[in-house]
């Protein structure tokens, strides 16, 4: 032995071989344990893990339905969807979140609110590899610069989604409303399943009113994804049901004309097709670009819009409540005739003022010195205040309230125009409740010329005018003309429910219509200048409403103050007299007199609707042989 010790080689070998046998047993037992473990996982619990594996790889994704398109009556597109690009980050794949965000901020303009939202989402628990949106609505330049720097920015991705776009937004923002990102309150009331893939919801106008119709039904797809959430292939797909495309009564040409006619001023134009109640134009000037609101307007832009002295966000057509002034006279004439407060022939002497009692307060006529002897036709044609003071006192507030409410004042009679206000139709009860005062005869005098407490929106004035054009037949104003799919309009358009205004002598309608025609065509008619040279007969009524006050905190240039203290110019009317195709209500804020400012606007609207547009269509039909738009009339 090299080490000088006794070694029993054979004994050592036997010892080793015994130990080796022990180890063989250990190996067999432990490998058996591993095999048993595999058997447990792969055979006994196979079903459990198969389910887990499928759940892993197969994900159910919601597919947002494309929102229904909105057309005008001539199939002009008013609201469409276009792809908008946003930037998202997958935190697991980002090398250094701080540096990446700093680098992105150098490339893009990231508003603080977006950054805060991103940081909040980053802290919330989530599935690994789920992208978090950082900013929406990238412009092409930003997309390009992201593409250039893409290799330096792992985990940063540009994604696309379909977003509402209004091609004529300055013209249509007030009529259509707009969509915006779903906010927290809306999240409470929407169906979470159907909106699973949707980011936008109708915020106002048609978009809000027909949300259910326009939204459609969510679709699903089963997709195979990898652990990073990237979709590899679609296994099964249930397509979303797109929102219904709808057609409005609105005529973009008329809408554009309305904006042009009021350009540079503030006001509203509402045009109704009396037969259908269809709103042909619903213009509030100035308008604004609703596209800014869709993806979220910046604080600075919003401040600029909301503090603009011209209040572009204010929907004057639906929410502007003005004293209607003399435009109320045709409706009051109907009321006076039907209630017997006056007759067609009754004449009164107009000395230029009116007193309730001798020696009392003098209520002045707009014309100094008065109109002399006037009957009801003269009183309408020349807008004689004295005549209406008298019949107002004769009728009293209750009668006037009854009739005026049948014309739709004091209520929102429109079927599908969301956000319209009701104006104010005063009554005894109202005054007692709100003012804690009794109704004085003087209040009736003021109501007789549409002043005092009375307030009406342009939409209400157009509705009432349309009722006269229809000779008492009620057709509530509406925007929805048809649904392009299979759904019926009745299913979504609320029922009207107004019963017709029937007069004891239906002929009285013609009498009042004639008096309104006299406004336009009579030798002393207040709007005779506006109707000069017309090839058709029209009916109308001018009005002027006093501007009472300015809010004290508003500071205007002196020039502005003078301009903005001028009276509002109003006009209501329809044409042609015998077969009314269009009824309008016009208000030009601080426009001065109704006859000089508002009536010519109405004439331009009538001309366009009755002569220019049909002429265009005839030319179009003969030129191309396409008859698509001909039934629009």
């Amino acid at each position, binding site marked *: 032995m*090299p*080490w000088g*010790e*006794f*070694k*029993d*080689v054979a004994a*050592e*070998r036997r*010892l*080793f*071989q015994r*130990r*080796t046998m022990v*180890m*063989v047993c250990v*190996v*067999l037992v*432990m*490998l058996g*344990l*591993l*095999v048993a*473990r*595999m*058997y447990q*996982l*792969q*055979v006994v*619990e*196979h079903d*459990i*893990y*198969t389910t*887990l*594996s499928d759940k*892993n*790889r197969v994900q159910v994704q919601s597919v947002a339905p494309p929102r229904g398109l909105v057309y005008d009556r001539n199939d002009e597109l008013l609201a469409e969807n276009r792809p908008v690009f946003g930037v998202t980050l997958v935190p697991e794949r980002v090398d250094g979140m701080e540096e990446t965000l700093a680098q992105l901020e150098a490339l893009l303009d990231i508003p603080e609110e977006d950054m805060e939202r991103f940081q909040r989402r980053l802290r919330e628990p989530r*599935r*690994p590899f789920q992208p978090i949106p950082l900013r929406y609505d990238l412009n092409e330049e930003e997309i390009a610069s992201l593409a250039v720097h893409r290799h330096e920015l792992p985990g940063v991705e540009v994604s696309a989604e379909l977003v509402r776009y209004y091609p004529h937004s300055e013209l249509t923002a007030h009529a259509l409303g707009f969509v915006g990102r779903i906010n927290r309150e809306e999240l409470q009331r929407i169906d979470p399943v159907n909106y699973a893939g949707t980011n936008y919801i109708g915020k106002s106008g048609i978009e809000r009113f027909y949300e259910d119709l326009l939204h459609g039904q969510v679709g699903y797809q089963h997709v*195979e*994804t*990898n*652990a*990073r959430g990237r979709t*590899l292939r679609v296994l099964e797909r249930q397509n979303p049901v797109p929102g219904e495309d709808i057609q409005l009564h609105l005529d973009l040409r008329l809408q554009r004309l309305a904006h042009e006619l009021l350009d540079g001023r503030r006001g509203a134009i509402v045009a109704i097709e009396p037969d259908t109640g269809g709103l042909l134009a619903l213009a509030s000037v100035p308008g604004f670009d609703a596209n800014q609101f869709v993806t979220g307007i910046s604080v600075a832009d919003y401040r600029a819009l909301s503090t603009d002295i011209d209040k572009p966000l204010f929907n004057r057509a639906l929410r502007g409540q003005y004293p209607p002034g003399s435009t109320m006279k045709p409706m009051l004439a109907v009321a006076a005739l039907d209630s017997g407060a006056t007759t067609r022939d009754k004449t009164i002497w107009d000395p230029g003022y009116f007193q309730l009692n001798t020696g009392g307060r003098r209520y002045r006529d707009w014309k100094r010195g008065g109109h002399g002897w006037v009957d009801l036709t003269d009183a309408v044609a020349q807008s004689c205040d004295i005549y209406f003071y008298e019949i107002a006192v004769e009728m009293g507030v209750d009668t006037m309230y009854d009739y005026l409410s049948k014309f739709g004042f004091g209520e929102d009679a429109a079927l599908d125009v969301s956000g319209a206000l009701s104006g104010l139709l005063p009554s005894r009860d109202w005054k007692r409740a709100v003012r804690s005062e009794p109704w004085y005869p003087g209040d009736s005098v003021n109501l007789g010329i549409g002043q005092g407490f009375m307030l009406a929106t342009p939409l209400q004035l157009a509705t009432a005018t349309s009722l006269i054009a229809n000779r008492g037949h009620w057709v509530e104003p509406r925007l929805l003309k048809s649904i392009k799919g299979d759904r019926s309009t009745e299913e979504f358009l609320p029922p009207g429910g107004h019963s017709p205004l029937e007069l004891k002598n239906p002929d009285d309608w013609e009498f009042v219509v004639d008096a309104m025609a006299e406004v336009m065509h009579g030798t002393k008619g207040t709007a005779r200048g506006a109707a000069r040279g017309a090839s058709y007969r029209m009916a109308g009524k001018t009005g002027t409403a006093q501007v009472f006050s300015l809010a004290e905190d508003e500071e205007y240039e002196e020039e502005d103050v003078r301009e903005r203290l001028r009276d509002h110019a109003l006009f209501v009317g329809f044409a042609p007299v015998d077969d009314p195709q269009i009824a309008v209500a016009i208000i030009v804020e601080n426009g001065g007199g109704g006859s000089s400012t508002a009536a010519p606007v109405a004439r331009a609207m009538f001309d366009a609707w009755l002569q220019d547009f049909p002429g265009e269509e005839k030319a179009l039909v003969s030129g191309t042989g396409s008859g698509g738009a001909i039934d629009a009339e």
Partner: protein
Amino acid sequence: MLSKSLSTSDHPLSRPRSLWSVFHIDPILLALLLLLIGGGLVVLFSGADRNIEVVKAQGIRMGVALVVMLVFAQLDPAVFRRWAPWLYLAGVAGLAAVLLVGVGAKGAQRWLAIPGLPRFQPSELMKLVMPMMTAWYLSRHFLPPTLSRIAVALVIVLAPMAMIILQPDLGTSLLVGAAGIFVVFFAGMSWRLIAAFAALVSVSAPLMWFFVMRDYQKQRVLTLLDPQSDPLGAGWNIIQSKTAIGSGGLEGKGWLQGTQSHLEFLPESHTDFIVAVLAEEFGFIGMLVLMAVYLLIILRCLYIAATAQDSFSRLLAGALTMTFFIYIFVNVGMVSGLLPVVGVPLPLISYGGTSSVTLMAAFGVLMSIHTHRRMISA
């Protein structure tokens, strides 16, 4: 008792020698290893998501490892015995150097970068040197060893182990320690002592928990006990690998058809977790085949050990074989959720060079032991 005087290679009484023994190759072991490596490359192609470059790189590594194995096979076991103490000292010095000036990543220092030499891991070297050293020390004296020798042997084992734990590298330290302990076991440490040590370990486990284990290691143990407690964090790997294995079923989803690995749910699918790919794609049957190949390799190696001519060779061969087995058990146990996650690759299949070269060197040693025989005592 005649062994020393009779030389081996050119003795006139030697049997007609086959080509195998000229090159000191054990054909049975070589065939089993080539089968394992070849099958491993097939699985790797799938685990690396059809990246042929990965398979090529691994193929080259395996080629290098085979050459290393052949080189070791040519050396006489006596060479290993002579060099064992010096290699051991060099290894311990290397480990000390790693702790002082080592380089590494992810908070662990494992590599030693000596200018002019390729970077290497002294701890990897210790996997071979440790059983050599322990076998050298114990085989100098009669077996079974006395209590005091066992104590010295344990110091020989524990010192490098502690240094590797400090790097920290639990997996390697475990393998290095196992290699040494198996030598002590094969040397004939009495069962009573073994029982005493087992008792000591179970008592010291709670102390380890509070004083030695790092937070991430504790987390791994906790995760093993309840992977659902942190399904997106530490539990993710184990849930996904169990899902891969379980969904493979009896026959598997087919080669390249594993959804767990190809859809990137399975982490480390071409390195430590590659057995889950095999289990998913080839099923329980595939796992049985793999285990059978491993078992045959182990049995062949234990046979080599049992038939070796001297105690040093026996102890060395037995310990190297059992270390190989520990690789398998720890890796498969970890991937299937039986053991905590420890960085131990599946031997000769997982992608990666260092451990493959070490393992093949160990098989080279085994072949050397088997083919450098002295005639009479065979």
